């Protein structure tokens, strides 16, 4: 019986530690989408968000220019965001940007090092759009829901 309990505990702790990568804390999302507090948008569709980060869509519905900002390619939030919103691995997205950069059509969103930097960026630009981990201090940035 003790062995079963120990095995269950081991399984549970392993699951929690794996889950901690994708979902930093139980009950918290892996990432939250944030915008400037003055942005009237309350929710966005996944496709809109994907197009905004790939710069296929460049303006909010109220005609403000969208300023997307990414996180480092090795960050948990970036990988989760890429998988769930862009539906492509980060490598594939980087390849997409190679095509865009060297054909002169645009440049990728800036890649910032931390949640804190992303929040600062979004607060700096009225059209700012970013994502941060579930535990990030938002410092006044507005969270929008993902439809």
């Amino acid at each position: 019986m003790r062995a079963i309990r120990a095995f269950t505990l081991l399984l549970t702790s392993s699951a929690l530690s794996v889950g901690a990568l994708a979902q930093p804390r139980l009950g918290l999302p892996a990432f939250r989408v944030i915008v400037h507090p003055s942005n009237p948008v309350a929710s966005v569709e996944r496709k809109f968000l994907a197009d905004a980060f790939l710069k296929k869509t460049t303006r909010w519905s109220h005609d403000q220019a969208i300023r997307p900002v990414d996180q480092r390619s090795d960050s948990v939030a970036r990988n989760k965001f890429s998988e769930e919103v862009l539906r492509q691995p980060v490598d594939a997205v980087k390849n997409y940007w190679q095509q865009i950069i060297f054909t002169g059509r645009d440049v990728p969103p800036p890649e910032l090092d931390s949640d804190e930097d992303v929040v600062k960026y979004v607060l700096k630009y009225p059209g700012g759009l970013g994502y941060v981990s579930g535990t990030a201090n938002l410092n006044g940035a507005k969270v929008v829901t993902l439809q």
Partner: protein
Amino acid sequence: MIVPPASCWKWVIVTHLHQRSVFRRGGVSRLRLAGLCAFALQFSAGALELNVPGEPIQVHGFVSQGFIKSNANNYLAESTRGSFEFTEVGLNFSKELTDRLRVGVQLFARRLGPLDGFDANFDWFYLDYRWADWLGIRAGRVKLPFGLYNEINDIDSARVPILLPQSIYPTSNRDFLLAQTGGEIYGRFSLASAGALEYRAYGGTLFLRSTTPPNSPYQIGKLNAPYVVGGRILWETPLEGLRVGGSLQALRLDADFFFNQSIFGPLQAAGILPPEFTGKVGVQIPATLWVGSAEYSAGALLLAAEYSRWYVSLNSSQSVLFPNISTMVSERFYGMLAYRVKPWLHPGLYYSGYYTDVQNRSGRANMQHDAAATLRFDINEYWLLKLEGHFMYGTAALDPTLNHDRPLTDLQKTWGVLLVKTTAYF
């Protein structure tokens, strides 16, 4: 009568619109490669941002070095002995002036066998005003949106194969097909649940520099393209990752050929050419190209297929020396598969076919089939290495001048090519 054989005229057409290196793009600006390299290498890896007022200037670049070896027939370079004449360098700068207006420029230099010679040129430069997502305008030297991948034909880091399927994207043809100088309108419409539609339409000209081939009975004088117009529509279907579309392009090349007295003199004496003939022959080569495209990209998988036909004719002011050619239709197609097995390992396969004349598909000189396999290794975020093998059947896309002026019918029918290429980029 000293008139080159019919195959020679076909070669002239092909020269203009498919493979040859007779004409090269005129340089807008020339820097030496060494200077460009030195400038590029001053920067560390990663996109650069120069500190100027407002938003920073973005700087990106790449340096590629390749090796090409074939077991028979020289392909793109002196490949039978193995050639390192396979180098590309690019450096671009862009800046967002307002949230609707961008400017950018890319310098590019390459060495590929006899093509180009490390002269740096403006690969593209533009002023881009994006009024709305559904309408933008670019003016300057703009890459041509022909098929799925024409714009990345010289961007090694943006694709899996070293050589894109050469039937539709002949690398030795980049001077004609890569970019035009003029204007372009573009945009993207959301079709709600039906996906989205992306369009581009352009018009302008090509700046070309003429180079007379060695041992030629004529000198090439003026060479220009009075127009190049076209467009592309891509439908992003409701099935995410699937896009289908079509591209159409029309252009005309005008050239003056000056024949040597030793060629036309006897013809004049025999009364075949009029006495007032001075040796100058004006030639117009109108061409229309179209391609249908389909691509499916899902996660690590990429599938692509394209089918194309090119319609080319030749109108000459003196048909004795330079016969008119009614429209010749070439056929080009490929299917490609790539799958990212690991973040650092990306294999790919394609089969590409090319017929110079759909009315005559037989004989090695009228076709070329190419089965290719590539391994792309992403060593890190800024550096990659590729290995690629090609099994070739047919000689239609080979260059006689690279093969000691032997006719295509005399070249090896079945042959192979091995390529190795490494690229650093930021």
